């Protein structure tokens, strides 16, 4: 397998599919149907191919695997380089899984400009996979920023009534952060003379430079996570985005931030990371408590889930910066399970939105009478969201808290309040939508999930239980990379402290 460019194939196959869709001509109906089919097949084949990365992954090493390298701009020492390790592996798979789910979920709800919509999704998949595989700063930046464009279009073109405001808010927020990151990358290049990520990970930046670099990257990643107080783009973007847009946004895009912290901030700027850990903890705790309370007061289903995302991502940032095995593995696991669970929750809102064209909680009530299957699926993902043991949500939260408790008990206790508050807003939502008498006239003829919708949820249901009952499938590939990350981090810290002592 060493010479077979698997990663490039997985990355660019969707783009090929997108190009193919662009060539489709004919009657609008035919075009739409063919565009859907091509998108479905492309994303399915991509998913199957990506499974080979998992099957052939070597759990015993922390090195990047499936590496590919080609000269790009040799004059500047910039090359096209891809590779995955235990940290990025499952994000690639998450992306390739959610894309066909999104295509299937949009099958009937998107009727306008289907061709362009499918192209946007496939282009986005390429960007996302490329982002997680990139091992060169420039390649990374291209993919990282590239994602913005299709997402901007998806919200702005296929979104709800306030789509333009939301799309711009989303774009400007994230762009403002990224610009600072770009400047930081230039500085890094000037210092290290390379944009090669593995090389940079072992390069030692002077501590005072690290501070600025860390802050610049933080600006970009904090917006993406999103951390409080730069989270306000998220509820608006989710509310206006079409269902599948929300799924990708919550499922994959939010993980860019957490992944970035693990790939850049911790290994490249360890001293600055230690300096800023209190800041991260504070912002995360505020995020967990504040947004959970805000979620409690929401009247819009999508907004509620969007706010809950902010709270759940607070666990991720806390866990990552504990720099303990459990904390970091928990953070990754929490991102993966949140990727599945929040995606499923947005799809769940989508199911009733497609029928009633309303996201207001008020519109619904007593749905269990007409939609028992829907109620069951909703129940399962609600429970996963509140972190019930036996679902994927529990493992991530639990590991994060185990990690934090070793470092700071107050942070652990305050973060854990999110578990209580999370139960409150989710159960309250569920009760208002699903339970009660079915009295509203417009709901009397609402139908349960169609076979297509069942097919959308089936893989997610299996995964969320699998992740809860037998996590070793997902944790084992992480161990080597996470332990290596921690070792390198502590080594770097020891060197800095040694220098500080010697200088005294």
């Amino acid at each position, binding site marked *: 397998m060493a010479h077979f460019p698997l990663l490039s194939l997985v990355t660019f196959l969707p783009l090929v599919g997108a190009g193919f869709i662009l060539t489709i001509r004919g009657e609008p109906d035919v075009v739409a149907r063919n565009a859907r089919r091509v998108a479905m097949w492309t994303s399915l084949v991509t998913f199957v191919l990506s499974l080979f990365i998992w099957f052939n992954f070597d759990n015993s090493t922390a090195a990047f695997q499936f590496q590919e390298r080609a000269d790009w701009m040799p004059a500047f020492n910039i090359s096209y380089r891809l590779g995955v390790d235990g940290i990025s592996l499952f994000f690639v798979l998450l992306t390739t899984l959610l894309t066909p789910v999104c295509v299937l979920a949009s099958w009937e709800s998107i009727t306008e400009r289907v061709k362009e919509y499918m192209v946007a999704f496939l282009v986005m998949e390429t960007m996302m996979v490329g982002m997680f595989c990139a091992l060169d700063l420039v390649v990374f930046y291209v993919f990282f920023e590239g994602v913005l464009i299709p997402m901007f279009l998806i919200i702005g073109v296929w979104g709800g009534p306030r789509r333009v405001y939301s799309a711009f808010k989303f774009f400007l927020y994230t762009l403002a952060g990224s610009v600072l990151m770009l400047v930081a990358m230039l500085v890094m290049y000037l210092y290290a003379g390379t944009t090669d990520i593995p090389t940079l990970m072992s390069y030692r930046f002077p501590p005072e430079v690290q501070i600025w670099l860390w802050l610049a990257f933080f600006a970009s990643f904090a917006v993406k996570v999103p951390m409080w107080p730069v989270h306000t783009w998220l509820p608006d973007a989710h509310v206006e985005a079409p269902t599948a847009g929300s799924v990708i946004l919550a499922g994959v895009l939010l993980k860019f931030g957490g992944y970035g912290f693990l790939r850049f901030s911790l290994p490249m700027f360890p001293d600055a990371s230690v300096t800023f850990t209190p800041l991260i903890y504070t912002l995360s705790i505020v995020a967990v408590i504040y947004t959970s309370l805000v979620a409690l007061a929401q009247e819009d289903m999508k907004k509620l889930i969007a706010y809950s995302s902010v709270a759940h991502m607070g666990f991720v940032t806390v866990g990552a910066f504990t720099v303990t095995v459990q904390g970091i593995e928990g953070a990754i696991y929490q991102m993966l399970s949140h990727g599945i669970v929040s995606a499923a929750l947005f799809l769940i809102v989508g199911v009733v939105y497609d029928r009633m064209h309303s996201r207001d909680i008020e519109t619904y009530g007593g749905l269990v009478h007409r939609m*028992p*299957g829907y109620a069951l699926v909703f129940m399962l993902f609600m429970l996963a969201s509140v972190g*019930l043991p036996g679902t994927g949500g529990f493992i991530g939260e639990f590991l994060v808290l*185990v990690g934090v*408790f070793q470092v700071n008990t107050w942070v652990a206790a305050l973060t*854990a309040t999110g578990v209580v508050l999370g139960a*409150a807003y989710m159960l309250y939502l569920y009760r208002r939508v699903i339970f009660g008498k079915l009295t509203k006239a417009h709901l009397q003829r609402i139908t349960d999930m169609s076979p297509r919708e069942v097919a959308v949820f089936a893989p997610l249901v299996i995964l969320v239980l699998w992740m809860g009952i037998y996590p070793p499938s997902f944790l084992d590939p992480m161990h080597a990379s996470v332990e290596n990350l921690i070792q390198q981090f502590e080594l770097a810290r020891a060197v800095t402290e040694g220098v500080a002592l010697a200088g005294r």
Partner: protein
Amino acid sequence: MAAIAVFLPLLGSIIAGLMALFTPEDKDRRARFDTLSQWVTCGAMILSAVVAAFVFADVVGGGRPHTVELLTWIDSGALEVSWALKMDTLSAVMLLTVTSVAAVIHVYSVGYMHHDPGIPRFMSYLSLFTFFMLMLVTADNLVQLFFGWEGVGLASYLLIGFWYDRPSANAAAIKAFIVNRIGDFGFALGIFAVFVLFQSIHFDTIFAAAPGKADAVFQVFGGEFHALTVICLLLFVGAMGKSAQLGLHTWLPDAMEGPTPVSALIHAATMVTAGVFMVARLSPLFEFSEIALAVVTIVGASTAIFAATVGCVQNDIKRVIAYSTCSQLGYMFFACGVSAYSAGIFHLMTHAFFKALLFLGAGSVIHAMSDEQDMRRMGGIYKTIPVTYAVMWIGSLALAGIWPFAGFFSKDIILEAAWAAHTGVGSYAFWLGILAAFLTAFYSWRLLLMTFHGAPRADEKVMAHVHESPMVMLIPLLLLAAGALFAGYIGYQWFVGADAPGFWGNAVFVLPEHSALEDAHHVPAWVKFLPLVVAAGGIGLAFILYVLSPNLPGLLAERFRAVYQFLLNKWYFDELYDWLFVRPAFVLGRGFWKSGDGALIDGVGPDGVAAATRNLARRIAGLQTGYLYHYAFAMLIGVAILITWYLWQRGG
């Protein structure tokens, strides 16, 4: 074999659950589905109980404790957790109690729920609950215990809210889940603390290491504390939530919104006793913390008396029994608090039988009275439903602790142990326990007399319809009545008597200096007889108030209006919490959303910047007037400034 007993209910639950999901519209086929789901779940449950009996014989009789490893669960760094079934005397006792009570209640439900449209769903939930409960009691590590713990919480949530059309049922379900979550919050922190101290959360490992850590301290919450005390107190918060102890008890009475078999199975016989089980299971940790044991004793004794006082004035038949449960759990806790863990578990076991009996008996009454639950609208029905009447007597006698019924043996040993502890908290528990025993007898007979005797207070239509329950409900009642009669007598020697050391093996751990249970057998005679005397007194008082002079209770309530209102409103806990937590949460949520996110962050951030940019753009656009002389004038000013600046530079 243990795995069969544990997983059969899960299998039954899944099958019944699928049948609930695919229930056909057609009436006949629907009825067939209902029957089939009942057969499957009851069959699985009975089979599980039979297997459990064999396991019990093997583990306890054969003296073969063992652990069945199933699957790796979580493996991250030093944290290694498996799915495993730990089989020792403690879990075998629980396994047998849970499966047998659950089997009886499954069968009873066939009769009780026969009008209900959601039979397969109900049976599925019941079996699901049993599965989680079994995972809880057979856990060999804290995380699996937590899995079962949260799982029974889920099942309880589903069953309390079973009649999801009723707003009150939904509210009660959410309340139960969230109050339990608050307890679980403490439990979880306790697990983390155990991991930090021991680098393991596996029972055998931490129990073996506990004596070595008896004096360990660690930094937690900004101070330095005795490690095992912190751990035990945090874990005990979890136990308080699940076992509805004072402060976190508010969900249990509301949980009576669920169907009666649920109240019997979950909210009396099994789930609520999980906290007691946990303390007993963790006895090797609690033993090394005098403070934690004292807290357990005080909380237990206070709950026992608190719930008993409230139970005396409630009018809903199920709520009286619910408060009684709360009170009895208090007894079990203070037994553990004075290191008489096996007495606590003994009471847990006998209580499971007689409390399930009382609940199911109450269910039978409610069934007969056309779903009436208010005792003020009952009365005069003892002749029409004689079997129910008889078993309610047996249950009440057991609850009040009258010889030779089950409660006599288990409650007395607890009180004797509390006295024999010869500590301040022990005496506190003993005297409150005695007082609570008096009140227990009083409210039990108040219940009996109000429900069955006196003039009928229901309307004629209801009275005409009063009927004894079918056999499918009566047989379970009779089985439980047998348990309430004999369980105490049979179990006494094993659990707390001469055979106890051989029976328990290593399942519970007591330090030699904590000899309360041993000393309990050598207390003065008055200590042994006092509970019986006060119980008789309580029964007597109930007779005076509700038979001899039935006007007196009303007069008393008038005379001591403040006290009566205080008790009737359950010491105003609900109002307090609502005012303290629920309302502020919503107010804060709205405030953060509208003024935090909306006005502050967006106002200053993106919207503010956008507005400022637009403003600036408009002003700049305003400069572009299109008149030539405006531009010329601006240029002239510019030239003037430039020249001035140039000269300034040269001059300087």
